[in-house]
């Protein structure tokens, strides 16, 4: 699947697209369970998702094979990024990067 296809995949998450992206970024440095993901996202993005939003996004990511549940730790399942998830994350970041660069160029020339 090429870069554009992966970017479209995350587009199809609808209103859960941003939570899904931030979850993928959070898992990029290693497996985490739900609470750790919430805290990590709050730390690096200053956004705190509610439990309903978080697990709606996690369910979509898992259904599409972008993340994978590991063995349960007490009542909590840690999640890890799959190779497909890593590709999707790279594609989305590249897409954002392209938009950011254009915006910065236009601001610089304004």
């Amino acid at each position, binding site marked *: 699947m090429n*870069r*554009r296809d992966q*970017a*479209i995949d995350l*587009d*199809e*998450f*609808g*209103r*859960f*697209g941003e939570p899904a*992206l*931030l979850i993928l*970024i959070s898992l990029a440095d290693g497996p985490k*369970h*739900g*609470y750790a993901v*919430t805290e990590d996202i709050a730390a*690096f*993005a*200053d*956004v705190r*998702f*509610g*439990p*309903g*939003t*978080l*697990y*709606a996004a*996690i*369910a*979509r990511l*898992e*259904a*599409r*094979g972008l993340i994978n*549940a590991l063995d*349960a730790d*007490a*009542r*909590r*399942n840690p999640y890890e990024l799959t190779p497909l998830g890593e590709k999707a994350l790279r594609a989305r*970041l*590249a*897409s*954002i*990067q*392209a*938009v*950011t*660069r*254009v*915006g*910065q160029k236009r601001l610089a020339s304004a």
Partner: protein
Amino acid sequence: MTWLLKLYPPQWRRRYGEELLALIAQQRFSFATMFDIIGGAIDAWTQPQSHLAARAASQPEGDTIMLAKVMRLRSAGYGAKATAVDGLKGAGVILGGTVLSVLVATWMRQQSVDPVYPQALMANGASNRVTVSRSGVPPETLTSRRHLTESLEGSWDSDDFCADGVTR
């Protein structure tokens, strides 16, 4: 807030219920969290493929794997085997949730509650309408995003990444 878990479909609860309870237990009660969980329950009823495919994918082998693959492709006609009762339950949750949201938001406005909460309620209702329509993104929005991505493809440099673009 643990009673809110009962709003979710049974299959969703079997897969994510324990985790959600553990997460809720670590948070203080707030209206925002409560509405968020209710919104999640409505989403789970209206978008069953989001959790059913994950559940099937966790099975070792057999038809469920095929089901997961088909669901991942979201091909028409290969969705969950929902009965008429399931449909009625889903419709009840959507309609009941919407009416409840409007009533609570109206009451909050009359009580001069911080406007953030009624606004969040109404926004959640609006999101649900979009979600029901299909995947949560209005077609025109999706098209414009794709067009923008395609038109910009190839114009970026990996050294120029700006983290601010990822966050709000």
